[in-house]
């Protein structure tokens, strides 16, 4: 069934071309988004003008022989546009609207939280857009910067290709907030990455007997680079004695986790945070 | 003879009775009192679907998709038609009003089979004030049952006339109205065959045997068979998609408890709800109904029909329904039988009314009026007094829930409500999102709904462990069904939601309703089902049921009933010689 369709189409198109159905309009070669444009017409009398493009489907009467004025409002969206002027016959023309100059950057940065000292852990992707949210495909250089406060850590200019520029880098050594900035001319986008302590390192606990059992607490909890593990991190204390076992999931507060547990006899206390184990502690029974 | 006496001794014009029905029920319906009834939202939900998809009975808004061919469509399609000019709620009220106005006409015509015009007119007048009618219209919201019963009562006199007089136009009109009744509610027709048509056939047989009518016994029985065959075939065709759906998916779900199946002797509230309120002052008339019904051979079929129907209406108070219905006992609800029982009693009650009026005149008129008004008044009072009927949800505004579902792409997921009662249907009607729950037990096919013996998930707690097990099963498969949002109107459910992975994300109004969400649920996908009706079924469903109702209307208009010569106030009509003392 495809072949008859093709033959019919060819025949009809040939006939159409004889009949002059689709004669060309003189349209601009390309228009920058948001700018005005004109399309000249010839002849006389009334005709209907159609403008069909992304986000636009306009139809209005025009006088032949006069210029058709296209408002910037109608040409905001980048893409292909078809102009038709129909009276007895239709005249068509197609043109492209291309993006204007960049006015914003869409900047995707990952991750938002990253443990310190990890290679290729931070990445960012920037897309330049014009004021009408059209992707700017014209070549441009985007500069990526990492900074802690006012202190720059890293700066790299990247040539945007196909409307995209990207970078990747390792996380730093110190916990804290890192500013990630992408800039293109006078357009800037800022994101933040929280560098956090890595796994607790050398988790140590101390304890003492109190009237209702034992009181145990960690020493200040750090990662191996010396960064303080964030408050709220859970440390699981386990106290084992002859009568059984007691456990408490205690959050770190001001660098230290602490728990009270019921135990009367000689008690072995241990601690763990996630998959990291701490030391064991033996506390004697009640005197 | 005074004017008053004369007016008591004449039949009340049927137009006057219809006007009384309009005066009593019209304002209540205009006030949209039935909007808060149990099933009103369900009917409007179905109607809303027809309003948008007349020829496509597959509705994806409940149970992840179900076929509306599992419920006869006539009343819903009429609401859908009227909703285009009056809106959905007023469309419902108008259809309900039509049914309420048709009912006394039906009772009058049905009663004339058994009693004279005067008693029949009082029976019709009494039917306007039936507690059972008020119960079904304003509390239960059983639009289809009331509409179907009204139509069926109008069809039965044609059945009788066809059997006894062999009038072709009676056959045509009787069959057409019967089909319309079936298109409104199939259960009414199925049970009506035994409980209503049975006594009519019996009395036609008696009349033929005793030569009170022109037809012979053989003629009566053969014509009854013709009528039955035509109605059977017609119902088979008009409701064909229904039969196909029910054959393909018979109701295999675990039985769901319903209070109308309880033993009324063990629960006073249930007894009041399902016996005292529906019968009202008729309870006082029961001895007369029994004695008077038994004393006349022509009334005995009616009495037996009444008694059997009444026994069914008692639900689990007697073992009879369970014995006779078997598994169907667990599917049916029994309040409708009480309604039918009161309708069957009305001809005898008409006799009681005229006897009282003849004997006590104005005093009787006052007493009967008080009894009638008291009965309907008690039923309306019970709407607020019934401890089982929560008004908490009805007073809660569900509009924020609808708005939430219709914004920000939330309708890409499914939802359920908890503690919403019948307001679930209201939410479903106005949102574009689908639910895995639904307020219609017979269409449920998802195993999480059918394997536990509970009805709606929104009412899960009222079904005890079964209900909560069903809810747990559904929540367990939330990801499978795209069930992301849960709206809670009862803090009872909050612990479960907390422990199984939902989070409270929004509070509506003053906190009566909260929205809960589960983050890892993917958007809902179409649930493949073999229950989707074929396009031709949708076409049939959209044409035949509404078509037979139009046909019935046209036949009533085109083939008007020949005016019957009034009988000389004999009670019952075509009375046996021994009944002569009842003639005024």
């Amino acid at each position: 069934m495809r072949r008859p369709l093709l033959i019919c189409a060819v025949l009809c198109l040939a006939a159409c071309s004889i009949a002059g159905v689709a004669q060309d309009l003189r349209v601009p070669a390309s228009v920058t988004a948001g700018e005005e444009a004109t399309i000249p017409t010839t002849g006389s009398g009334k005709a209907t003008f159609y403008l069909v493009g992304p986000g636009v489907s306009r139809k209005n009467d025009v006088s032949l022989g006069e210029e058709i004025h296209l408002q910037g409002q109608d040409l905001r969206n980048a893409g292909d546009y078809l102009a038709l002027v129909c009276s007895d016959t239709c005249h068509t023309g197609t043109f492209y609207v291309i993006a204007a100059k960049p006015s914003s950057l869409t900047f995707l940065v990952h991750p938002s939280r990253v443990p310190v000292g990890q290679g290729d852990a931070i990445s960012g992707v920037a897309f330049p857009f014009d004021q009408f949210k059209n992707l700017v495909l014209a070549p441009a250089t985007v500069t990526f910067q990492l900074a802690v406060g006012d202190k720059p850590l890293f700066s790299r200019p990247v040539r945007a290709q196909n409307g995209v520029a990207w970078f990747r880098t390792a996380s730093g050594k110190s916990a804290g907030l890192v500013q990630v900035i992408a800039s293109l001319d006078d357009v800037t986008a800022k994101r933040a990455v929280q560098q956090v302590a890595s796994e607790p390192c050398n988790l140590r606990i101390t304890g003492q007997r109190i009237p209702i059992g034992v009181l145990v607490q960690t020493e200040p909890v750090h990662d191996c680079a010396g960064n303080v593990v964030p408050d709220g991190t859970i440390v699981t204390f386990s106290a084992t004695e002859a009568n059984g076992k007691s456990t408490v999931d205690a959050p770190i507060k001001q660098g230290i986790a602490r728990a009270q547990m019921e135990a009367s006899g000689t008690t072995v206390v241990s601690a763990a945070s996630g998959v990291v184990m701490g030391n064991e502690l033996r506390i004697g029974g009640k005197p | 003879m005074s004017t008053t006496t004369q007016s008591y001794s004449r039949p009340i014009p049927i137009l006057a009775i219809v006007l009384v029905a309009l005066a009593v029920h019209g304002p209540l319906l205009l006030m949209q009192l039935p909007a808060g009834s149990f099933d009103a939202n369900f009917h409007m939900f179905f109607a809303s679907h027809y309003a948008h998809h007349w020829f496509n009975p597959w509705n994806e808004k409940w149970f992840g998709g179900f076929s509306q061919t599992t419920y006869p469509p006539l009343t819903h399609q009429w609401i859908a038609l009227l909703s285009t000019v009056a809106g959905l709620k007023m469309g419902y009220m108008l259809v309900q009003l039509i049914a309420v106005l048709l009912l006394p006409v039906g009772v009058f015509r049905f009663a004339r089979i058994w009693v004279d015009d005067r008693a029949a007119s009082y029976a019709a007048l009494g039917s306007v004030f039936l507690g059972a009618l008020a119960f079904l219209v304003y509390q239960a919201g059983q639009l289809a049952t009331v509409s179907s019963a009204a139509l069926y009562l109008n069809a039965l006199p044609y059945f009788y006339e066809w059997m006894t007089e062999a009038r072709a136009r009676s056959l045509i009109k009787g069959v057409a109205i019967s089909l319309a009744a079936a298109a409104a509610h199939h259960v009414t027709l199925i049970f009506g065959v035994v409980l209503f048509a049975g006594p009519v056939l019996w009395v036609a047989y008696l009349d033929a045997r005793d030569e009170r009518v022109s037809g012979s016994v053989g003629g009566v029985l053969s014509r009854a068979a013709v009528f039955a065959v035509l109605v059977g075939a017609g119902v088979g065709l008009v409701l064909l998609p229904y039969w196909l759906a029910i054959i393909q998916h018979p109701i295999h779900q675990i039985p769901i408890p319903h209070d109308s199946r309880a033993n009324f002797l063990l629960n006073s509230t249930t007894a009041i709800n399902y016996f005292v309120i529906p019968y009202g002052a008729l309870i006082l008339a029961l001895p007369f109904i029994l004695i008077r019904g038994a004393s006349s051979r022509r009334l005995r079929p009616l009495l037996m029909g009444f008694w059997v129907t009444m026994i069914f209406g008692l639900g689990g108070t007697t073992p009879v329904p369970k014995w006779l219905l078997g598994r169907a006992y667990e599917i049916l609800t029994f309040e409708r039988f009480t309604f039918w029982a009161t309708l069957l009693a009305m001809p005898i009650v008409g006799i009681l009314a005229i006897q009282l009026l003849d004997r006590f005149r104005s005093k009787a008129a006052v007493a009967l009026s008080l009894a009638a008004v008291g009965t309907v008044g008690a039923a309306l009072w019970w709407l607020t007094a019934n401890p089982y009927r929560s008004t908490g949800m009805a007073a809660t505004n569900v509009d924020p829930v609808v708005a939430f579902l219709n914004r920000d792409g939330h309708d890409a997921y499914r939802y359920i409500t908890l503690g919403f009662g019948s307001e679930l249907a209201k939410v479903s009607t106005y949102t574009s999102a689908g639910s895995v729950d639904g307020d219609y037990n017979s269409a449920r096919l998802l195993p999480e709904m059918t394997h536990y013996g509970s009805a709606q998930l929104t009412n899960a707690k009222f079904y005890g462990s079964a209900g909560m097990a069903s809810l747990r099963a559904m929540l367990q498969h939330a990801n499978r069904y795209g069930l992301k949002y849960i709206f809670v109107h009862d803090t009872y459910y909050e612990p479960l939601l907390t422990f199984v992975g939902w989070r409270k994300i929004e509070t509506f109004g003053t906190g009566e309703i909260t929205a809960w969400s589960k983050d890892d649920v993917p958007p809902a996908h179409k649930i493949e089902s073999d229950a989707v009706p074929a396009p031709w079924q949708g076409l049939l469903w959209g044409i035949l049921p509404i078509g037979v109702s139009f046909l019935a209307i046209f036949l009533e208009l085109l083939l008007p009933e020949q005016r019957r010569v009034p009988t000389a106030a004999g009670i019952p009509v075509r009375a046996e010689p021994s009944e002569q003392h009842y003639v005024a």
Partner: protein
Amino acid sequence: MNPVPGSAIAHLRRALRVVSVSAFISCLALSSYAADSVVQVQLDTKNATPRAVESLTERGILRDYRFAWTSIAQAVELNTADPLEGPFAGEAKRLLRETVVSQQRSGLSRQYVNQSHRLEAVFYAPEGDVIELHDTAEYEIRISDGGKIIHDEHVVMHFVVLMTPGADRWVIRQLQAVPKS
């Protein structure tokens, strides 16, 4: 160029036009049974950087891009924004909705027939949260005014597409036609 009213050439042209359009429509109608309504999509991911496209992602993009164009075709032909819910997000969704609204106002509609898309992935973000595709699309576009076809043309178009992962699918966030480079 307007034909001169009343001239024999004008009559001939009009007649030929009517015949040709009628014949074309008839041919279309006849062949509609066989017209392949399925959107053809091919995807080449070998040039995607800096991250290699996973096979599961490739399948997902093929499926979702095809569905997106089916939805566009439905939306602009029937002038309803409903099909746009789901496959589109952000700017692409806004633009397509505007197109539908604008068409509703002007009484125009578009048809995309016999679509074929050759996609090339040119950028896949390190975290897999955005992919840039270049699409060379071929289709026939018909523009109708009140049911009357006013333009019918077979075109080859180039699109720059940004897709991002949604809850259960890839959605088009930017769809921009560009001149052939």
